[in-house]
């Protein structure tokens, strides 16, 4: 899997030193002068293995595992199996170290980590070095203590991974994240920011005659206070535990989407009712952030609520109207739909009602968005649901779907054909006639699916005939099978002609058999006449016609399914004069016929 865009952004954001001298791993081969872009594995490897004593080597193993696991989220998609390998490795190495050696205490230096006086990690590559990143973010000592469980280790990894992607500059910093984590078996010594240097001789506490900008609140701020004429005696009373639990549930992470949507509803209502205080432009960035959050969490119901609130807002100027319309369109872009689809169960046969509601309620070219999703979505379940969603647009915009089919790549063309097949057979037929021109196996197989439910018509028959002459054997045989079953007599003459033409040349035995069966299926009466001619050739040169052996083979295959004694006698006739191979085939054909006569399958 290629490196993710997050990785590129991360690299781009990092301070890029003018001289970068990565420390090669001790056991690494000498790099070539010019090398291709590194693979994810190469990117995740490359840190130096240092440390002499067994304890130092074990410490090095833990740090490398931690570093690689943290960076793996930049290199791979979050769900990639490779990440699990890194996590497993981290758990194992950390557990082993703490069990065998006890506490892992690391002094953090700019490019090194030191444990028990030994350098256990060294990497001078600023982009990769875990030591540099810890040091740069203010960590000066990191200690993992025995008793450390997997959840804590995971939390540490989370903090480090978040720092690796370099985010949240204004809400949390590393120290806040560590503080929040509340570790029990991990201790940090970290820079908490700066404080006035008490040793400063002038002892000004960092502020030398500072004149901070003060803002006075209005003298009547928060007035009037509510009037409470009554007084009620207060006493100490225990608050029941269930009541506390219920209150605490309001603050759980799961409640966040509800709060986020409610806030947006409040803001949008305020934009309508108090435009002098707050305007749409003031809240638009926040609305967009909330929308993205809901998307990333796959919260459809919340998204619908947010969209509804925005659509219901009364905006008083055209600029806000335009901005709101753009905001609403963002709910149904291909990117948004992708995210929603990924949250739907793999077994789901249809989209959740909320998604239909969203599409119904919002403006935008949903057909185009859905087609884009269909063209790029990998998951079968997501594609299935997208097709269901698209089906709704075919009645009104079927011609648009047909138009998109023209330049569509193979996979998308197949998907669109499938959509049409279930909704509009006439357009499906037109689409099939267009697609049959492409000499593409995937499309041909899809066409076979699509032609099957179509009423038999000369057009359908012609398409099947073309497929019966396709390069791919499976396509040919399935097309012939359909022709035989659907008894389109228009196919008889062309198939006979083809048999006669190809029999002396490249026609394989099996192909001849299938063609024979098809002829018998398409028109049993005509087939019997034709087979008679091939089985008992007339005239002096009848028996030495070019390809007569294959023609007879085709005839025998067809005769298996034809009723009447003549069919059997024709097979016997062929068998009497045939070589051993064809003779054996005739014997098999007779067996099949008899089995069928007894009610079995050929």
């Amino acid at each position, binding site marked *: 899997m290629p490196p993710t865009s997050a990785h590129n952004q991360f690299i781009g954001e990092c301070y890029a030193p003018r001289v970068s001298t990565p420390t090669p791993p001790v056991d690494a081969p000498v790099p070539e002068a010019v090398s291709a872009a590194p693979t994810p594995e190469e990117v995740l490897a490359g840190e130096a293995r240092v440390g002499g004593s067994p304890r130092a080597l074990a410490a090095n193993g833990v740090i490398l595992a931690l570093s690689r696991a943290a960076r793996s989220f930049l290199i791979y998609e979050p769900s990639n199996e490779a990440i699990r390998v890194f996590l497993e490795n981290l758990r194992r190495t950390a557990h082993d170290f703490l069990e065998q050696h006890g506490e892992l205490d690391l002094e953090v230096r700019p490019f090194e980590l030191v444990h028990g006086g030994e350098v256990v990690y060294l990497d001078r590559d600023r982009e990769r070095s875990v030591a540099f990143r810890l040091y740069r973010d203010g960590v000066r000592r990191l200690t993992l203590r025995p008793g450390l469980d997997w959840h804590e280790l995971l939390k540490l990894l989370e903090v480090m991974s978040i720092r690796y992607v370099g985010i949240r*500059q204004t809400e949390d910093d590393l120290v806040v994240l560590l503080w929040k984590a509340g570790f029990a078996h991990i201790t940090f010594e970290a820079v908490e920011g700066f404080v006035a240097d008490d040793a400063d001789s*002038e002892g000004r506490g960092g502020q*030398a005659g500072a004149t901070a900008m003060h803002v*006075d609140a209005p003298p009547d701020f928060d007035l009037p206070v509510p009037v409470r004429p009554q007084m009620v005696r207060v006493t100490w009373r225990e608050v029941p535990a269930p009541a506390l639990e219920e209150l605490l549930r309001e603050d759980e992470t799961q409640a*966040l989407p509800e*709060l986020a949507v409610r806030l947006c509803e409040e*803001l949008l209502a305020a934009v309508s009712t108090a435009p002098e205080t707050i305007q749409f432009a003031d*809240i638009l960035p926040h609305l967009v952030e909330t929308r993205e959050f809901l998307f990333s969490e796959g919260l459809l119901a919340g998204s619908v609520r947010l969209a509804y609130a925005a659509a219901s807002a009364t905006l008083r100027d055209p600029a806000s109207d335009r901005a709101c319309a753009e905001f609403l369109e963002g709910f149904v872009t291909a990117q948004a739909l992708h995210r929603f689809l990924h949250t739907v169960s793999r077994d789901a046969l249809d989209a959740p009602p909320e998604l239909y509601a969203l599409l119904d309620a919002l403006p935008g070219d949903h057909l185009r968005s859905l087609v884009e999703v269909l063209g790029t979505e990998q998951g079968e379940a997501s594609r299935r649901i997208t097709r269901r969603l698209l089906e709704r647009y075919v009645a009104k915009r079927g011609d648009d779907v047909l138009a998109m089919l023209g330049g569509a790549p193979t996979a998308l063309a197949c998907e669109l054909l499938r959509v049409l097949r279930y909704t509009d057979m006439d357009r499906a037929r037109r689409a099939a006639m267009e697609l049959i021109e492409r000499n593409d196996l995937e499309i041909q197989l899809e066409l076979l699916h699509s032609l099957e439910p179509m009423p038999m018509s000369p057009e359908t028959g012609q398409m099947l005939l073309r497929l019966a002459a396709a390069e791919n054997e499976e396509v040919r045989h399935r097309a012939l099978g359909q022709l035989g079953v659907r008894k389109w007599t228009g196919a008889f003459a062309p198939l006979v002609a083809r048999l006669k033409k190809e029999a002396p040349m490249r026609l394989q035995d099996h192909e001849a058999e299938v063609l024979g069966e098809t002829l018998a299926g398409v028109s049993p009466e005509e087939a019997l006449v034709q087979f008679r001619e091939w089985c008992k050739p007339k005239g002096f040169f009848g028996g030495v016609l070019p390809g007569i052996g294959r023609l007879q083979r085709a005839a025998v295959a067809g005769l298996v399914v034809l009723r009447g004694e003549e069919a059997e006698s024709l097979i016997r006739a062929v068998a009497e004069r045939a070589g051993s191979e064809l003779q054996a085939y005739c014997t098999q054909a007779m067996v099949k016929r008899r089995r069928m006569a007894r009610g079995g399958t050929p």
Partner: protein
Amino acid sequence: MSDEILQGQEQLAAALNQARAGEDRQLGQRVRELGEQFVRLTNGLVRLCGIHAPENAAFNEPTHQLVSTLLRLDKLIGQVMIVCVEGQVYVNDIRVRMDDRLSGPQALEAELGRHSCGGLSFTRPLDEDQVRALVSCIAAPAASERPLAAMVQALRECGVPEVNPLGRFRLRLTGEQARTASQVELQRTLQRANNVVAEAWGSLSANRMPNPLPIRRLVNEFVDASSNDDMLQREEEEAAATHGNDEFSLHSVRVTTFALLIGRELGLHQAALADLGVAAMYHDSGYAQRDESGFSPPFSDHGLAGARLLARQRGFHQAKIKRMLVAIEHHRDLDRNPCLYARIIRIADDFENYTRLRPSGAFMSPAEAIVRMASAVGTAYDAHLFQLFVNRVGAFPPGTLLRLKDGRVVLSLSGARDAARFSRPLCKVLRNADGTEPADEQVDVATGGVQIAEVLLQKR
């Protein structure tokens, strides 16, 4: 591969996903770039002072650029604070990443260090003449005595009062005594809080992006400190000692203290307490907004105005959601379904508003406030949250002025220490029965023989 690993992977992926939704990479990046420009341009101009007089045309272009850089920084983050510490430069807490081998942080730190200066704070952008004066001051030889004070004086004299030189800094590490709940530190924290909040208001008032990080750090210290029983007492003493300080900041700090008290009683975990505290700090931020005539919004609009200001912070973050909701909902009655934090802060805010010492005195004593507020339980106040508050502050909340039966006038300090001492606080004696003032005497009403006669209303 175990389920635990798989769950761990999913958990990490979700956490990163959420974090990415909350990032404000652009702002951080722009501040860093501008910070780097500031450092390079200032270093260059200071070096240029060794070659030319500041009026020389060679100064024109870099001076112009530095003015522009400061303007852009001001627009982005408000009052600009540049701090040099141990070879690194921070712009309003955002570390500037730059190559220190060139004209970088170390050079600036060395130049400022000659004046015992560790940074510069800009209360507003400078014009070109002021920039020339500033770099001249930096490049000038340091005074032999009290160099920092001399630099402050020099800047005032040459017309750059907008720049405040800061003393030297050092990096503070976790584990230091600094962030403990010791009494001295708590007192310092409370003192510092007013400045931090005042600066935040100033920045919001200038319609700049909110920067909650300094407030969050402060609140984290509050959270640590509020685990200590002395918090209420210290806060009360500090509030009493800061009459005449910024009333607005003081209000925010006191509301935060009370809100944290309720949050802790409720059992919120540390991170949630911190979010609650930051929300409490910002609950009245709407008053920092100014219209074209320079007026604050009226009471009825301040919540919405606060949400508008807070919405300027970029990046989705649950703490931001909660504090915006608090700004909007903190005066709402229960029938309008305010969120949990807004319900907590409603109690804290009303209590503070009833008892705040205004120029004309408090509206009512804390003891009276609590019983009057009790009449609105179920309509204005969540019954359980209010009871948690009552259980903690007691019948005579800290700050209640009491007359004892023996004639002494005392100030309640402790709140309810437990059920048995719900109405028997620890008090500070303000006046003896004979009218004399004791030096520093406390009396525990819970001990035998001491009885409360009446509640007094504190007046200026």
